[in-house]
């Protein structure tokens, strides 16, 4: 099955770590809080209550948008999005429809792939439903503490093609909002939620369907579900049909996706501008200030590391945490100055061999320097040790000669141990090979 193109777009919801809710002054914290205690007439949707927007949340979205290279709609508004669900108290969600705060951005992955950001908008979160069985009846218990918490939605174009690209994109978003300090993006707590839109076609054209995969709360599972879906779609397409346009959920038991809705009509949200909230007109100067004052961003950190000589996978790994990223860039820069092999030095950081939280970059580098200046064994001394180990381990030598290539590692280890680290590993390997092949 070749010649297939996958089209994957991601919708990520990020809960802002705001003090107050999006449209009222209620305490926005809701994790492990007694149910229905952080509510007021507004977020409970009581008759006569009206929304008034939280300004800080708006500037947080602008930060996110700018960090994602987006254009900003200086004139923006909120809209009502209508649907019925018990956790949605007003029967509509205040969101943004045609004038989102941010649009037309992009994120570049480590291999140069550009993922376009279609839009970044602000909306309010819903309450939380808990399923239970009370007196033999299946019920849902609703807690509205989360209702009205500010939520940012980040939507990409269907530019991703593989599970790896999806994972990397998500890592960037996950890091980015934490670098900006606007969200703790905790997948387990639900402050970052994922939804993938997947389709596959035999040519380069976007096919006339897409499948939404929801209810996945880890990068690993979203990757697995993406792989699963791509295979599932390919099989159906091979049979000459298009996969059904539907919503599916990740099932941890079957390690596959399952259809979640029986009928799938286009939902009619009947959007119209929110009449209770006057329009937003953003100060262009303030937007530019925000752009200017953006901190180091994960994609930028990653690219800096790569340009300094760090290998791609490690750069992606290190960008995840801002403090670690900043440290590794510093380390790479300084290592380069003293002519150390950047990739090697930074590799030690990646492999947890550097106590970066407690040591400064200069301390680390000077330690490495003194270690390397230790008188290294010369080749003659090495040869002695090599011969000694070969003589003392005839069986292992015999194993090697009879085809067991890995046996040489054992011998190598022995030489290094006997040298108490003073031998140069590459030299030892060369000598061992020479001696074993000649003998």
């Amino acid at each position, binding site marked *: 099955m070749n010649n297939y193109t996958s089209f994957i777009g991601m*919708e990520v*919801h990020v809960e802002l770590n705001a003090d*107050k809710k999006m449209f*009222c*002054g*209620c*305490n926005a914290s809701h994790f492990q809080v*007694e*149910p*229905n*205690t952080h*509510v*007021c*007439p*507004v977020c*409970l949707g009581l008759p006569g209550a009206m929304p*008034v*927007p*939280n*300004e800080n949340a708006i500037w947080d979205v602008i930060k996110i948008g700018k960090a994602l290279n987006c254009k900003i709609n200086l004139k923006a*508004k909120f809209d009502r999005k209508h*649907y*019925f*669900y*018990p956790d*949605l108290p007003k*029967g509509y*969600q205040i969101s943004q429809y045609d004038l989102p705060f941010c649009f037309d951005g992009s994120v570049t992955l480590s291999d140069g792939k550009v993922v376009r950001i279609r839009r970044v908008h602000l909306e309010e*979160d*819903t309450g939380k*439903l*808990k*399923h239970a069985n*009370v007196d033999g*009846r*299946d*019920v*849902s*218990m*609703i*807690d509205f503490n989360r209702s009205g918490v500010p939520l940012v*939605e980040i939507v990409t174009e269907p530019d991703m093609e593989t599970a790896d690209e999806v994972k990397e994109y998500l890592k960037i978003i996950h890091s980015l909002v934490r670098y900006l300090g606007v969200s703790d993006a905790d997948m387990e707590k639900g402050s970052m*939620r*994922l939804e993938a839109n997947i389709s596959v076609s035999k040519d380069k054209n976007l096919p006339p369907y897409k499948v939404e995969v*929801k*209810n996945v709360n880890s990068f690993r599972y979203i990757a697995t579900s993406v792989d699963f879906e791509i295979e599932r779609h390919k099989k159906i397409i091979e049979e000459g049909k298009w996969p059904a346009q539907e*919503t599916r*959920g990740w099932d941890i038991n079957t390690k596959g996706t399952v259809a*979640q*809705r029986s009928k799938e009509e286009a*939902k*009619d949200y*009947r959007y119209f*501008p929110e*009449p209770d*909230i*006057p*329009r*937003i*007109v953003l100060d262009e100067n303030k937007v530019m200030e925000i752009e200017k004052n953006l901190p180091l961003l994960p994609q930028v950190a990653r690219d800096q590391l790569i340009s300094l000589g760090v290998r791609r996978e490690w750069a992606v790994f290190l960008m995840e945490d801002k403090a670690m990223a900043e440290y590794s860039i510093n380390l790479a820069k300084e290592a380069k100055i003293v002519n150390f092999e950047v990739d090697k030095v930074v590799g030690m950081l990646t492999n947890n061999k550097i106590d970066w939280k407690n040591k400064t970059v200069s301390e680390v580098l000077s330690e490495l320097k003194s270690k390397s200046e230790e008188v290294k064994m010369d080749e003659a001394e090495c040869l002695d040790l090599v011969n000694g180990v070969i003589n003392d381990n005839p069986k292992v030598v015999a194993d090697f000669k009879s085809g067991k290539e890995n046996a040489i590692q054992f011998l190598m280890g022995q030489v290094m141990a006997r040298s108490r680290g003073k031998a140069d590993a590459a030299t030892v390997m060369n000598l061992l090979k020479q001696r074993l092949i000649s003998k």
Partner: protein
Amino acid sequence: MTEVVLRDEELIKLFELSKLEVGSVDIQKMKTQLSDVLSFVSVLNDVDTSGVEDTAEVTGLSNVFSKDEGKRMMGLEDALSGAVSKDKGYFVVKGVFVEDDNA
């Protein structure tokens, strides 16, 4: 004025969108009345609005932001006071199994 005649399927869809039960009203009467209203308002089709902006709001206001200090936060008892069905601090409804719309 254009005559608008609502089809039965359209009417049923409107009931669904509004979460209202069809059985609660005289359906033929409702269809006629709705069609009458829609015909009545269709007089707007004849109005030339090319180049005219929408007026979604009349105040001309912009950038009104919250000054709410959280004084309206209700106690649990008040929050649950209107609910017919409640338990252990939660509102209770019949079990809902279709996944909700919001991620």
